């Protein structure tokens, strides 16, 4: 422990403790006024926030019985009575995940290259960074609402949403990766008189490929999770099936769907971790 803490704490102890100096834990915020202000502010905010919560305890009490039924639905999942719907939803989710990841990766590679400051000219750099910023700041569910309004209900809108999300995610990470490469290798390729394409192909691509593959696997995993959500606003997939099951209070089917989602998410997380270890 630094001595300064003991020194700082000692004046606060009082006149009776002069003979034995007692160590005190240093406070999180050293400035006493600021400490009190933060405490009072937090207390006031909490009071106001809790006061505006308006919990309908009667409704919550009624809900306990439903919550219990939901837990029972988890323990006794019913895969069979809605199996047709579940199978269609799963099929849509899985195909949507695969196609959107592939298309998203294909589009994000050129954008990622364009957004890397060390190989792209300035106008292209700003354009690509702009595309990335737009794609990252829009939440997937809001994008899904717009695509559903434009392209109609169903997995096609979901496919577009997930591809759009993939572009922002992958291009940004790819661009950062290209900016972090070992310059000497690129320099060596440049010294042979290689053109820009040859530079990208021989100097940069081998360096970023393992991480690009790893990130694509990770994004595949994310896209499946998202595909379970965007169905709520009509973009197809297992989320739509889940929404229907909950609306009908069929908690056993809902439990079955949730168990399937958790199982697939865990499996894909495991495999994407394994794949990332394998390529790196």
């Amino acid at each position, binding site marked *: 422990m630094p001595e300064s803490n003991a020194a700082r704490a000692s004046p606060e102890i009082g006149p009776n403790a002069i003979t034995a100096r007692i160590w005190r834990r240093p406070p*999180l915020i050293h400035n006493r006024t600021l400490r009190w202000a933060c405490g009072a502010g937090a207390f006031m*905010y909490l009071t106001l*926030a*809790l006061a*505006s*919560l*308006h*919990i*309908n305890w009667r*409704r*919550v009490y*009624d*809900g306990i019985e*439903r*919550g219990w039924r*939901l837990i029972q639905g988890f323990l006794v999942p019913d895969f069979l009575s809605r199996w047709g719907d579940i199978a269609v939803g799963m*099929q*849509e989710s*899985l*195909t*949507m995940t*695969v*196609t959107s990841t*592939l298309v998203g990766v294909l589009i994000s590679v050129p954008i990622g290259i364009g957004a890397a400051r060390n190989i792209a000219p300035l106008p292209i750099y700003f354009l690509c960074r702009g595309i990335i910023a737009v794609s990252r*700041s829009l*939440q997937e*569910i*809001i994008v899904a*609402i*717009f695509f559903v*309004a*434009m*392209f*109609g209900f*169903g*997995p*096609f809108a979901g*496919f577009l949403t997930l591809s759009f999300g993939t572009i922002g995610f992958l291009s940004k990470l790819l661009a950062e990766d290209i900016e972090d490469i070992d310059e000497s290798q690129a320099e060596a390729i440049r010294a042979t008189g290689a053109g820009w394409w040859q530079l990208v192909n*021989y100097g940069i691509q081998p360096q970023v490929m393992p991480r690009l593959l790893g990130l694509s696997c990770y994004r595949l995993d994310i896209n499946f*999770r*998202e595909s*379970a*959500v965007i169905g*709520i*606003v009509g973009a197809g997939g297992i*989320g739509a099936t*889940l*929404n229907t099951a*909950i609306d009908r*209070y069929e908690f056993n089917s*809902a439990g079955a769907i*949730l168990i399937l*989602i*958790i199982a697939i*998410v*865990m499996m894909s*997380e495991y495999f994407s971790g394994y794949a990332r270890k394998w390529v790196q």
Partner: protein
Amino acid sequence: MPVATAVNKLVWRHRAPRRQLALWVSWFALVSLFVFCWRVMTKDTMWSFVWDAPRQAADISDRMFPPALRYFPELLAPLWDTINIATLGTLIAIVIAVPVAFLAARNTTPSPRMVRPLALLTIVASRSINSLIWGLLLVTIVGPGVFAGVIAIALRSIGFIAKLLYEAIEEIDASQVDAITATGASRLQVLDYGVVPQVLPAFAGISVFRWDINIRESTVLGLVGAGGLGLKLQASLNTLAWSQVTTILLVIFATVAVSEWISARVRHAVI
């Protein structure tokens, strides 16, 4: 080095023949998988709707501008709700996630065989369900409103905070813990004086980071009825009031930008 013989002269090649073949086979497999998935996915797609999309897009953007700024005062109460959902949800999550993290970390768990798997299971279950799905479930259970949103955010955040925190706990410097143990401190005192001070900055960073994500998520939780700005968004979408939708989206953007700024500042200060 992979080379090919061309008229008794060695020519450098990018890849060895076997590797080249493997590459082509994997590309072929990937393309076939894509074609197969595409056909399954689009078998029920109404292509007339898809071809109609540019016209729809033009129509919607036409209706979206100019944004209905007069609608803004109505959004202040939902904005307050949204911030409360994120903040209270994060606080509840922290209260539950901290003990779970200590139970899950290999160096602080009371029993690696019994308790640790249970804690890890809690983390995985909480993490693999999106907060919108938690919201969907909770709205049916406790009824629509802010309370359902708070609980949904809390349930989703437990796994996130606990996972990052237990990883931070596993990475601490063991010598400090040894030093506290050597003074004859009890188990709890070792945690309090040996472990907690080391993970406190990481903990503050994780919490603020999650709060930032939660602000983002709580803006759309209302789509399933869990209160906040999303409720207004849903209402405007249902009545096709696109100019109001623009206003709501602008408010969401501004809120998310401010929360990101706060979170970046705080993380910069503590780490």
